[in-house]
Structure formats: C-alpha cells, structure tokens
C-alpha cells in the first residue's frame, strides 16, 4: 500500500502547487514577512512549509508579481514582501480562473 500512499502524496502536492501561488498572493496585499505568512496560513488551515514559502516569495518577486523591502529599523532585520500592481492584476485573473475551475470541476465530479 506504500505505492498508494506515495502516489496520493505526489498527486496532492501537484494539486496544491498552483493554489499555493494564489493563496500567497492573496496574503501580500499588505507588507508581510515570510515567517509571518507561514504562521498565518497555518492558522487559517492551509499549512505550507517555511522551506517552500521563502523560495516561492523570491520566485514571485523575480517574476515581478511581488516587490520587497528590508526593514532594518529594529534589531531584527526583516524582509517584507508586498504585491505589485502587475501582481494584483495577475492575482485577480488567477482568482477568477480558480472560481471557474472550481465550479466546473464540482459539477463534473458530483454527477
């Protein structure tokens, strides 16, 4: 049965991968730092590992969807990320796509 579990794990990771982008973008409407995001998403029931979130934030920044700033005013410097205008446009479209897919898929699998 190990194969079953492995396969399930892989497919469910695949299923979440795209959604993670959507969820992370949604949380960046105000400046957030990485670990804050890890904690708040965990509390809201969408746990993501810290070792996934940090590289993801960097990738989104490279793609121009997020911008970042180091806050060095305290003795613990933190890197804050915020969604860019381009990112906002991207997020709106992705969200609409998700609603549509969700609706269609639901209709299909609930037949």
């Amino acid at each position, binding site marked *: 049965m190990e194969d079953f579990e492995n396969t399930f794990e892989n497919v469910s990771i695949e299923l979440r991968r795209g959604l993670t982008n959507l969820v992370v973008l949604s949380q960046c409407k105000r400046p957030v730092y*990485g*670990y804050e995001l890890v904690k708040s998403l965990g509390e809201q029931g969408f746990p993501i590992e*810290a*070792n996934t979130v940090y*590289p993801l934030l*960097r990738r989104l920044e490279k793609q121009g969807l997020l911008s970042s700033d*180091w806050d060095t005013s305290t003795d613990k*410097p*933190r*890197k804050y990320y915020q969604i860019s205008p381009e990112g906002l446009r991207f997020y709106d479209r992705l969200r609409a796509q998700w609603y549509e897919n969700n609706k269609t898929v639901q209709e299909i699998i609930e037949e």
Partner: protein
Amino acid sequence: MQNNLIERYIYAVTRHLPDKEAEEVSREIDELISSMLEERADNPGSEDEKVRQVLTELGSPEALAREYTGRANDSLIGQPHYSLYLKVLKFVLMAIAIGISVAMMVSAIIEGPYPGPSDTSLWINWSVDAVVEWLTSLTSALLSGFAWVTIIFAILYHKGVKLDYDPDDLDDLPEVPQEKARIGRGELIGEAIFTTLFAILFIVMPYINIPIIGMDAKPISLFTPEVLIGVRYLLIASIVTVILEMIVKFIDKRYSLRVFGAIILTNLVSIVTVSTWLGNPEALNPVFAERFQELTGLSVYGINGQPVPGFGGHWAMLPLPFLIVIVIVVIVAIIEIISAGVKTFSSKN
C-alpha cells in the same frame, strides 16, 4: 557552536547559488531561522537543541537549495530535445563503432606487419596488438562522439532551439509502418554480432580461422588460409554490403525500397563470395581432410569419395558439407529476397 551550525547550514544552502543571489538568500534564511527560534524561545530545552529542531524542520540544505534554483531548465538536456538526443546518440555511437572497426580491420591487414603462416607466437603478438589498438581507438572515438553530441544538444536545449518535431500541417505527420513491415532491434543486433565474428575469423586471422585442436601435434585450421586470403576482397565486400544493409535498416526501421535494394545486393554478393570460396576444391585444409580420413576411414570429398549425384564438374567432388552450405546460402538468399519483396510492396498499399 550553535551559531556555527546555523552558518554552516546557510552556507550549505547557498554555496552553489550565483554570487549575487547567495548573499540575499543567506540574509533571508538567517531571518527565517531567527524568527523560528524566537517562536521557540519559551519552549523547554537548550539553545542548541532548538537550533537543531529548527534546522531539521527546514529540511536538507540540498533540498532547500533546489527550491531556490527552481525546477525549470535545471537539466543538461530536457524534453523534447532529450528523445531526439538519445536517438542521434545511439546512431552516432553505432556508426563510430562500425566505422572504426572496419578501418582498423583493413589497416591491420594492409599496413600491419602481417606474420607468416606458421609462427604462432608472432600471430598472438600481432592479434593482441591489433585488439589493443582497436580498443584504444574505439574508446577515444566513442568518448569524443558522445561529448560532441551531448554538447550540441545541451546548447540546442538551453537556447530553446525548436526541433522540427511537430509539423505545422497534420497531414505532414509520417505514416505508421505496418506491423509486418517493421524491422526489430533484435534482428539488427544478431546480424551485427554474426558479422563481427565472421570478419574476425576469416578476414583478420585467416591463418587461424577455425582452429581444430587434437587432430595433430599443433592446432590446424579448418579452412585453407591461402584460399581465404585469395578471396579476402570478396569477404570484405560481403561485410561492407551487410553493414550497408544494417545502416539502411537502422535508419528506415521498416521494409522500404532502399532496404529491399540493400537486401538484394547483400544476398547476391554473399552467393558470389560463398561459391567462390567454398566452391574452390582446395578450400578445406588438406591436412584436415587427410587426418579425418585416417581417423574415420571416410573421405570428406563428395559422398565418401563418390561424386554427388545431380552436380557436374568439380562441384560433385567438393566436401559435402561445403556443397550443402552453398546450396543453403543460395536457397536462403532467394527466400529472403522474395519475402523482403512481399513485405516491401504489400505495405505500400
């Protein structure tokens, strides 16, 4: 000690990243680790234990580094280039192996200090030298062929060069060969092995060819070396036509007109070669024939010394097994040409 551990962890993650990125990523991970430690501040346990917990939770540095470098374009040659790369590589390596082997064989015979008929130790030296030289050239040629094909495909892949793989027009897609017109890989490998053995025994070492041990004080060859040397160019022509046939079969993978033509040529050349060679009354080593008669009381020529009925001239008095081989080669050639013709033309419709 714990700081040292964190530094070592961060270094392990970032050391393979590009310099400008490594610095930023180091700061980020440092921030992440201190945030995670901060959260555990009130937990029981020593500082060192907490550091170890946090780093364990972050996972192996290698996995984290992989997340940072991203998944795209992280292979030397990816799809769709990889499939074509494999095909081209196989073809190039096979062509190199055949080319080098034929070239070495010809040069070993023509240029090498070809030892005389009977000196066994000279023969062993000569064979060892030839094999060593063949292996060295083969290894270096295969390695450089491999390197070139790989480098070229790596560049094509990373430059994103489009392969002429999906035709714009659906009608341009190649036809699927019918099942019976396909040529299997196994068939080709079998032919290649047989051809190599044949070439080594009869062209490269005519004085040894098929050694018969135990009939005399020293091993004697089954076939007369001088006759083999006399038909050497016919033997080489047979090998060349067989190789040509294999290359055409390898490229077309089915019975095409070209394959059919190659099969006709190969079979005609082998009929000429076999009947010239084994049709020579001296082809069987006379020493062997003599010993055979002494031991068994039977003559190998004709049917125990009597002419074979149905055959005229010197053919009737050839060693019977040779006559049978010649007849079989002719019959097999005719069958092969007819069946290849049927496969070629029936699949055209």
